[in-house]
């Protein structure tokens, strides 16, 4: 066992997969010689060579298109969108090609797209968005969002080994803030499975990514009065509905927390599904704690106002508990 950071876990996961399988290669902006904007791929080009660690032009559509092409040739590309905000210029490649080729031709597209995502880093509107909702809505894509170093490593491996296009949402805020003990041997976290991050019986918080540690902190703040269960979704598509519904049936109150903005965020779909499936188990409305519906502000004070944080989550828990 060794204790490493979230970003180190991603790095290790990538390296191990590249060592294990020759068909795995990386492509993205500044990932080779520069080692990556956040240094995830530092040392990779020296170890694996420039054929497997490709510095691309500033052209997301090309990066994704190349990945699709390579995947169709039975390689396993791992593309990086330097900031997940930039994926919009490659949107068509992802949603109309990568997502639909298997449906249309029966050919697999085993590609992974790393999506450094999220705010709280004073990045402003184009470097801080949570873009998962855009792709949650596209049948044919898988989406994962680890919140711990263990899941970061386990899910990048699962994503690379998966024969479907998988979007891997790594949260920038967690890069150096999450630390965890990891086993040294090869392990994979199954896509489609969430986990109970904190067990409780009074109220369920459903969350993912950066809001997992924030929710746990909020829960701990209230621990003397409210016994909150925190579910880390880990997998956004497919969702682990079994785990989610089991928890809601147990506690009868559900609070959804995500850093993404409110309208049309994944929380909305979750809320609809919970009502459809377990309406009779609900002792209160399904509420959401999210960012507000604006672009991500640049001014730190405004960004703080914009986003959820442990205090806001705690207030949400308390209000729902009191209902």
């Amino acid at each position, binding site marked *: 066992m060794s204790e490493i950071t979230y970003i180190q876990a991603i790095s290790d996961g990538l390296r191990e997969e590249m060592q294990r399988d020759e068909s795995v290669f990386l492509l993205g902006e500044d990932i080779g010689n520069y080692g990556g904007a956040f240094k995830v791929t530092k040392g990779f080009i020296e170890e694996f060579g420039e054929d497997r660690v490709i510095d691309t032009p500033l052209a997301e559509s090309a990066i994704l298109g190349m990945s699709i092409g390579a995947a169709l040739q039975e390689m396993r590309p791992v593309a990086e969108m330097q900031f997940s905000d930039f994926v919009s210029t490659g949107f068509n490649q992802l949603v109309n090609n990568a997502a639909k080729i298997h449906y249309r031709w029966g050919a697999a597209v085993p590609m992974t797209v790393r999506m450094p995502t999220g705010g709280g880093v004073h990045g402003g509107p184009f470097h801080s968005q949570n873009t998962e909702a855009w792709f949650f809505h596209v049948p044919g894509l898988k989406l994962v969002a680890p919140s711990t170093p263990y899941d970061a490593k386990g899910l990048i491996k699962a994503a690379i080994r998966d024969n479907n296009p998988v979007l891997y949402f790594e949260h920038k805020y967690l890069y150096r803030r999450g630390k965890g003990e990891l086993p040294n041997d090869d392990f994979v976290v199954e896509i489609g499975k969430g986990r109970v991050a904190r067990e409780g019986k009074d109220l369920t918080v459903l969350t993912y990514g950066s809001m997992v540690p924030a929710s746990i902190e909020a829960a701990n703040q209230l621990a003397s009065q409210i016994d909150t269960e925190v579910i880390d979704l880990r997998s956004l598509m497919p969702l682990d509905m079994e785990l989610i519904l089991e928890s809601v049936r147990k506690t009868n109150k559900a609070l959804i927390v995500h850093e993404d903005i409110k309208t049309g965020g994944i929380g909305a779909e979750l809320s609809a599904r919970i009502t459809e499936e377990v309406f*009779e*188990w609900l002792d209160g409305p399904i509420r959401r704690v999210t960012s507000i519906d604006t672009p991500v502000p640049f001014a730190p004070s405004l960004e703080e*106002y914009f986003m959820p944080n442990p205090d806001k989550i705690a207030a949400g828990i308390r209000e729902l508990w009191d209902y």
Partner: protein
Amino acid sequence: MRIEVIMPQMGESVAEGTIIKWHKQPGDAIEKDEIMLEISTDKVDSEIPSSHEGKLAEITVEEGETVEVGTTIAYIETEKDAEIESSGDGEDAKAEAAEETKEASPASENGEPIETKGRSGKDFYSPLVRSIAAKENVSQSELESIEGTGIGGRVRKQDLLAYLESRGAKPSGQPAKRTEPIKYSGPMEGVDVVEMDNMRKSIARHMRSSLDTSAHVYSVSEVDMTRIVKYREEHKAEFRNNEGFKLTYTPFIADATVRALLDFPRVNASVDMDKGEILEKRFVNLGMAVAIEDGLIVPVIKNADERSFLGLARETYRLANKARDEELNPDDVQGGTFTITNPGIFGNLYGLPIINQPQLGILGVGAIQKRPVVINDAIAIRSMMYLTLSYDHRVLDGAIGGQFLQRIVQYLEEFDGEGIL
């Protein structure tokens, strides 16, 4: 109020800046957003606007000097209270914002707190609470007696569970299990639910509609059927032999009715209220109501006026069989001008039938019973039968209705058996 002006950070990696030029000098008035100075960083040169309105009080960093980001470079004096407050990324602004975010409701869209809407409170029971209550047989009045600790006095899950424990139960806190989709009202105690078939629905519609259409009135008369009864007794075996089916009273009554209808064409008619027309038919299509399993149907003897007694008998028998075998086709049940029905079939004295639309009358035949009657001031025992005529008073008044009925009575009582068989 003295406001600090600090060296701004012009980029993430920028650590210091150089004053290129002061556009204002101490003592100058300055407006908000008016350009105050120019600075240079390793990336760009920038014009820096003033954050406040007032007077440039003091410059602490001169042109050409390079200082770290955050260093105070000047002071502005404003009209407001005497307090030093920093402009730009100060601690205070952060604290203020933090204050605001604490107040902001977590689930609000644009920073405004959500109001708890109407129904929460004493009169609202959540799906879970209702379900547990149903499972544990908690009555509505019991539920209403529970003190709720939720918002507005709402009864929460734990309140109900606490109540149940005090009542002695050991509730699981789970809603009643449901394996089927929930229906509004399920099966009731002691009630068997029978689905109405198409015929039943059709009868229901027709009967209701007929009562709503015609102005039903009724005339009742007695018929002395003794002669016909005698005749039938004497000839039924022979009839059976020749025809292969039983001779019933039906053809006798049918025959009399047809003749009476020919005498009173106004009864053998239908009405068009919109046009204000009565349509008298010169042919008689006689409907005969037949009871079948779980319902009734009215096959029609077409052109009954052209048939002989035997013909009526045969056709009646044929249609009745077809009805019971469920082999009637649409043509068999359409086009009737008058109907006969038999409420007396089970022994009842008489009935008050509903007119078969779009006809104007229907004859209800009662049971034949031996009764003492007065004939020529003496008492005799006779086979008597009640006849009821239901008819539509929109078209037929009491005079014609009564007379028509009497005509049938007359034909029946005059029966002499001549030329029948």
